[in-house]
């Protein structure tokens, strides 16, 4: 792959991380409690909390994050992040330790670590989609 292609993807994934990351944070802010939102209504008669939409209750968050759409968003976010972060490291390190065997070793080592992180992250997404975690 030419450096121009690699760097084009670097910039593209940078923008996509911003877009998908914003979705992610938007979702959190929609879910999160705010003074205007009533988080729950306490039903004194049978002593239960009745949930009202938009809360950070664990089960609620889990239900949202287990949907196929959000699972896909996270998987894509993970992909873009892993590419952007590890290629970024490669660029920085190749500038600090330029040339020769060291640069090659760094590139391949980062590739391996990136793969491990990607597989580990994907596992989390898949497991949570399957209702686990």
């Amino acid at each position, binding site marked *: 792959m*030419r*450096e*121009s*292609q690699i760097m*084009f993807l670097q910039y593209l994934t940078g923008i996509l991380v911003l877009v998908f990351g914003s979705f992610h944070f938007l979702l959190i802010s929609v879910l999160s409690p705010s003074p205007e939102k009533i988080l729950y209504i306490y039903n004194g008669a049978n002593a239960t909390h009745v949930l009202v939409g938009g809360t950070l209750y664990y089960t609620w968050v889990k239900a949202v994050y287990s949907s196929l759409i959000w699972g896909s968003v996270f998987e894509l976010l993970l992909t873009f992040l892993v590419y952007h972060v590890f290629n970024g490291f490669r660029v920085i390190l*190749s500038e*600090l330790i*330029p*040339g020769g065997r060291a640069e090659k070793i760094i590139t391949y080592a980062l590739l391996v670590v990136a793969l491990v992180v990607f597989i580990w992250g994907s596992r989390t997404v898949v497991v949570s989609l399957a209702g686990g975690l």
Partner: protein
Amino acid sequence: METLVLKGFGEVVKTVTFRVRRYDPEKKEIPKYEEYKVPVQKGMTILDGILYIKEHLDHSLSARYSCRMGICGSCGMIINGKEKLACQTQILELGKDLIKVDPMGNYGIVKDLVPELSKLFNNHQSVKPFIVREEEEPKSEFLQTPDQREKYAMFTDCILCGLCLSACPTSASDELYLGPQALAQSFRYIVDNRDLGFEERLNVVDSKHGVWRCHFSGACSEVCPKGVDPALAIQLLRKVMTTNIFVKYQQKGATRGPERKSALGVS
């Protein structure tokens, strides 16, 4: 003691101290600064000051220069912390009584203020800084409109002084980085409508230590004594490289003018 003055300059205005970095790799001593008192006459440049030191105070000081008029690009050095041509820097205009002179950075040192410039020249050579054509001896002119020339005109002013590479922070950390001078020159030839060498330059320019390693600090353009803007060339070069991913960059080669006879009548 009588003050020695240089011929051809105005009266002595004041005395300034030159603090010059001295280093001789052959002596295996660590670099040090030495101070010299120089009587400054109106019109004296830093290079004149250095030559004054060399003639009257310390013959062993080494510096590199030739034209003394900002054309040959030989006298680049760091003057009071900034890359400048010594022959184009008036001492009085600096407005300081202490002037620190260092050799250019990001190069090796031959001696004192003389940098070892093979990196600059090798990088320049590696981007094929000439119009690449197949035919050995063209029989007619390649036509070029003023607009076509305007695309690269600014970058032809480079005098290969190497100040931009000395100021470049990427060159400071990445010794394999092509540097602003070579990248600007590769752009200059790639967009020249007479050139056909895009593919040949691609492996060097679009490489791990090529055009993509610029951080756009802009130090190169800031220090260039010729008003060349290498940082701009690098951005434009990136645009060419990115577009080339999707639509192959086409070099058609300029159209030809009528065939001409040489002055001797031999075509």
